[in-house]
């Protein structure tokens, strides 16, 4: 039993160590979100509620951008949640590993299910499929206990700083820059590039449609274009 605990403990610390490099990504994004949100007029409680309750950077930035464009609440929610839909895939991929855990534990894992913890976790479970579920859970939480605190604290620092930064620093541009930084490295396959191009062209040409509905139509067209291109080319290459 002791040996067992030891491996669980060491797996936790391995997750912690292996996810440490992501701190370098999480801190600038958290800070930029805090800055951009407080520039947009959110108070500290609102900024922190975003980062603590939602804990999904891209969707938070989307919501912020659409709030500034005065889009209707329903459209803001639909668009931002669409950005998070990829997490349904993560959720499905973790069922073979965590499906039998008690609901409370699965809820906690779900709350912490972000791009990095998923990517690192699934890699770990594919490399070591036979380890006990306790160790898989330990690795996952090791990963998130290094990232989540940095996310919260950097958001707070950004928000505290943000209100004091003068306009000449053009911090409104933090939102587009963050999205470019998130998307550009993924433009590695033809279907991804087609999707991005259709999204840009359609969104610009449909910008006249009220309530930011043009963006939703553009996103649906772009998604179909990507899936169609993948089908034509085969296997997403």
């Amino acid at each position: 039993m002791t040996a067992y605990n030891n491996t669980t403990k060491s797996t936790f610390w391995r997750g912690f160590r292996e996810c440490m490099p992501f701190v370098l990504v999480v801190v600038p994004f958290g800070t930029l979100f805090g800055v951009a949100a407080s520039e947009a007029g959110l108070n500290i409680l609102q900024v922190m509620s975003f980062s603590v309750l939602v804990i999904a950077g891209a969707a938070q930035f989307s919501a912020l951008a659409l709030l500034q464009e005065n889009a209707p609440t329903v459209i803001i929610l639909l668009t931002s949640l669409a950005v998070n839909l990829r997490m349904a895939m993560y959720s499905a991929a973790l069922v073979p590993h965590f499906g039998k855990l008690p609901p409370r534990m699965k809820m906690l894992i779900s709350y912490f299910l972000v791009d990095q913890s998923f990517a690192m976790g699934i890699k770990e479970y594919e490399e070591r499929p036979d380890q006990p579920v306790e160790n898989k859970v330990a690795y996952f939480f090791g990963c998130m206990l290094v990232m989540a605190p940095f996310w919260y604290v950097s958001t707070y620092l950004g928000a505290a700083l943000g209100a004091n930064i003068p306009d000449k620093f053009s911090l409104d541009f933090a939102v587009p820059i963050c999205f470019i930084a998130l998307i550009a490295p993924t433009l590695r396959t033809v279907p991804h590039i087609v999707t991005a191009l259709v999204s840009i062209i359609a969104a610009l040409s449909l910008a006249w449609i009220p309530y930011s509905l043009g963006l939703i139509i553009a996103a649906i067209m772009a998604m179909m274009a990507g899936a169609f291109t993948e089908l034509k080319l085969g296997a997403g290459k």
Partner: protein
Amino acid sequence: MIPDPTKIWPVIIGLAIGTFLIRYSFLGLLGDRELPAWFLRHLRYVGVAVLPGLIAPLILWPQATGGTPDLARILAAIAAITIGIWKKSVIGAVVLGFGTLYLVQYLAG
């Protein structure tokens, strides 16, 4: 600035609940269920279908300039896209994007 602050809390709460339900979907609610291939194929492109369309107008018609295209922002976006695709670097894109923005703004006075 956000024109209508009364939307902020509904958006935060709605996004928090919706995001949690997406994350908990299969793990907690649907279980081990096969998804149709066409559905997964579309799901793969949701992110890259939404985000470029969302930011394209923000880059071309920025609120800060009252909607007129601004050379510094366009060049900064191009720099960030280039470094992001070429070096696959998230941080590099942010640093070079802001670097270009400030440099062009400085040169333009």
